[in-house]
């Protein structure tokens, strides 16, 4: 029944990353279908409560709050990597491009049902933009107060979705890849018509060490 369908989808997910001719979109879709789900609203409102509390704890020092959100995201990324590898049976990525695709097209899809595309690659394929169709699980019905949107300095603007960047960074770090990750277009504090675009850039390989946090 439900379990059989989930099991078939999980097998599909495993096959599509393993067999030659990788199709990360398919793997992502299959993994999403297979996963147990909850109402997105619960996630959105919980995350909203967290952001509000973090801002309060930081006494509205937005720079600190952004850093905190990034750290929390990083902690999440490190923790969910084992779960991810187990569910998708993903093989080792042979290039940064493959790593980026795995995070964006499989990871973001299976955990949050996010649709995105990778574009604007540089020549040596160490940097790209991840363009999201939407970031509804984080931003649905969210309005950022003006005081967190103003200022010429990018650092004084609230990076509401920074957790997602931290998670990508943490997950990649856990498999040996250090990156820089931040939103270059953020519809919540900037031009809504420009949507959400995350820049993901390879910085260095992590020295061979036990990849998982305790």
């Amino acid at each position, binding site marked *: 029944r*439900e379990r059989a369908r989930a099991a078939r989808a999980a097998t599909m997910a495993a096959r599509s990353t393993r067999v030659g001719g990788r199709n990360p979109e398919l793997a992502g879709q299959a993994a*999403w279908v297979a*996963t*147990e*789900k*909850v*109402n*997105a*609203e*619960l*996630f959105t*409102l*919980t*995350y*909203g*409560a*967290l952001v*509000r*509390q973090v801002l309060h*704890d930081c006494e509205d020092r937005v720079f600190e709050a952004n850093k905190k959100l990034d750290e*929390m995201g990083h*902690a*999440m990324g490190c*923790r*969910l990597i084992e*779960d991810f590898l187990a569910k998708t049976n993903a093989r080792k990525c042979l290039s940064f491009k493959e790593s980026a695709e795995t995070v964006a097209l499989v990871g973001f899809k*299976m*955990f*949050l*049902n996010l649709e995105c595309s990778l574009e604007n690659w540089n020549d040596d394929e160490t940097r790209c933009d991840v363009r999201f169709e939407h970031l*509804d*699980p984080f931003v*649905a019905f969210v309005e950022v107060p003006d005081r967190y949107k103003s200022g010429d300095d990018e650092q004084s603007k609230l990076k509401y979705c920074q957790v997602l960047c931290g998670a990508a960074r943490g997950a990649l770090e856990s498999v040996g890849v250090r990156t820089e990750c931040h939103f270059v277009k953020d519809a919540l504090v900037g031009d809504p018509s420009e949507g959400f675009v995350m820049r993901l850039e390879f910085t260095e390989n992590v020295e061979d060490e036990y990849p998982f946090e305790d």
Partner: protein
Amino acid sequence: EMASTSRPSVSASAMSYLLLVMVRDYHEKGEAGRAQLETMGAQLGARLAERYTKDRARFTTHTEVVLWTCKEFWQETFGKRVDNLKTNNRGVYVLTDVAFEWMSGLRPFGGDTEETSWALMMGYAESYGSFAGGVVRGALESLGLRCAVIAEPTCGAVTSGAEEFKPLGCKFTVRLAAGLGFGGVA
């Protein structure tokens, strides 16, 4: 699947990891952290209750509110209905979940002995409890019931050996504030 196919969903894992990192972070801050978790929970609970009751007729009695919380609210938020509800008919309600979804991933960890590992786990569970207790309080208060909520994680007796681990439960004690409105209906 809990969520209906017509409503947006996220993976249960994502929710679980969000909770984990939130609770862990504030747990590190001791009593102050628990208070902050309770506050966050209350905000969340109030918003959830507003959303869930948007298209619903207003409640007219305390009992209706509590029953709704045990059924619809619990189902949407904690994945199931409350297992058991007791009251002394004088403003105290005890809601018990034999296995509490939000604590389902918790296991004894980190200590040198089994006892200390359990103690560490129960410490975390109490922080989860602070958050969940806040959620329940926020929901009830947004529906007109001023109250205090204490959440106590519960576990089976500590057993050594390879017996299957029993997930943690949680007991919520709700005390309604005196002199509530609702047109004088108890």
